[in-house]
């Protein structure tokens, strides 16, 4: 574009102010990262209140701060891959192993587990409560063409759900938009949609117990081994990401997987129910 000379001072003004703004913001926030651990986490661990219970204990002991960004597992892994994390805490084992194999993370460890459940309306039109396994339940939903809300966001829960459909030999792709509805949202938003539509969905147990808008929905299927939900914890590779606060992050991981962290995880209850079962190999 042709510009006349009168625009030049204006663009330099813009540049000037841009630099000013950036400088100002830097002044506003003297390096937060120095004495803090940044965790990219799946939402279920955050929404269940586990961190509110655990982290203050670690923070007090080590005089530090743990900052948690709670997003879907898929996004958490991507953010960590961009070096925007010190620690990754998610629940999609194969994606986690790929993350480590690609060099982004150092040694993945099991941290804890719980299970997924299928929730749906109490009226249970598809008869999911009578199913013996997750495969049977999904087959029943398909037969009835009952509405099923899928996360559809590449999260750990979404990956698990797709795995279950595959095990039931049902191809949901052509069904999307009919009774199979992809919300493209987090677990909480998907649960709200599920309640609103009287639909079925797959959720981790911790999120379900802590979710406060259940209305007439309840757990209809649980206990299948296929519904096992493993959480892993990974140190982001400081060789790939020099900004990683490796020493402190490792301290945090050691504490979480150590006896104190594991015991605290086991002790954490909501509404009288244990949400997570520690299983780190120590």
């Amino acid at each position, binding site marked *: 574009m042709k510009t006349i000379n009168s625009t030049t001072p204006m663009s330099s003004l813009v540049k000037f102010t841009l630099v000013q703004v950036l400088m100002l*913001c830097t002044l506003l926030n003297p390096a937060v990262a120095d004495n803090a651990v940044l965790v990219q986490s799946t939402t279920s661990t955050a929404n269940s209140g586990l961190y509110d219970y655990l982290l203050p204990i670690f923070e007090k002991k080590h005089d530090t701060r743990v900052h948690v960004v709670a997003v879907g597992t898929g996004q958490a892994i991507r953010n960590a891959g961009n070096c925007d994390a010190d620690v990754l805490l998610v629940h999609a084992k194969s994606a986690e192993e790929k993350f480590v194999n690609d060099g982004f993370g150092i040694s993945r460890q099991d941290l804890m587990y719980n299970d997924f459940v299928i929730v749906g309306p109490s009226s249970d039109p598809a008869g999911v409560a009578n199913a013996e396994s997750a495969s049977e339940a999904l087959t029943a939903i398909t037969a009835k063409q009952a509405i099923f809300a899928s996360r559809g966001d590449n999260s750990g829960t979404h990956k698990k759900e797709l795995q279950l459909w595959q095990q039931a030999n049902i191809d949901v792709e052509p069904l999307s938009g009919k009774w199979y509805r992809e919300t493209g949202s987090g677990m909480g938003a998907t649960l709200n949609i599920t309640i609103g539509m009287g639909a079925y969905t797959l959720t981790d147990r911790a999120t379900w117990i802590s979710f406060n808008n259940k209305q007439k929905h309840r757990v209809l299927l649980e206990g299948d081994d296929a519904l096992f939900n493993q959480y892993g914890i990974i140190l982001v590779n400081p060789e790939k990401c020099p900004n990683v606060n490796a020493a402190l992050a490792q301290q945090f991981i050691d504490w979480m997987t150590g006896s104190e962290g594991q015991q605290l995880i086991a002790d954490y209850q909501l509404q009288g129910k244990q949400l997570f079962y520690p299983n780190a190999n120590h």
Partner: protein
Amino acid sequence: MQDFRQSFSHAAQLIADLDPTLIEIVLLSLKVSLTATLLACVIGMPLGALLATRRFFGKWLVSVVLNTLMGMPPVVLGLLFYMVLSASGPLGWLQLLYTPGAMIIVQTFLVLPIVTALTKQIIEDAWSEYQPLLQSLRVGKWGSAQTLLWDMRTSLLTVALAGFARAISEVGAVIVVGGNINHLTRVMTTAIALETSKGELALALALGMILLLIALTVNALVFSTRQRVTV
């Protein structure tokens, strides 16, 4: 219906208790959105005034682009700044991602097109009236812009309020670059999103009511000063 009644009592309870977490969140919301609005005004108002009073090639294009940017979805801007501020992005070395600073920057750019475009419109109208006088008095470009900005200050206050409303009410941009980190980057809107996702609908709605109350207070304060300065 029960949710509504519950929300009102929740909101009243939170305010009555001066809930420390709530106060922290409210103060951060105000800090981020007021700072962003202020920065956007400091940059956007002179810029809008200059765009209004100068003639240059491609001016219509600048106007079209500005007006389009007013409709920028916050989440898109958030993503853009996530990529820029990410540790692996070009400005990663600033270590601003997941800090209030990042939230201020992204909201500044969210508000900037609104402030600039509306200022340009207001100053253009005033300029068409003032131009003969200011030219006759040999007031230069900067002086003219200053004069117009000062004389249209009551209208520009409304522009600032429109910018602030956009900033304080958006969630898409701050949640991406701020991360909704408890005690660090959690603001009213991201807290509302979080409580909604936890199924705490009454609490979420209560927070929404408090957010509106804050916006009401800011507007009332500004309008009361406006009454005093109107000439």
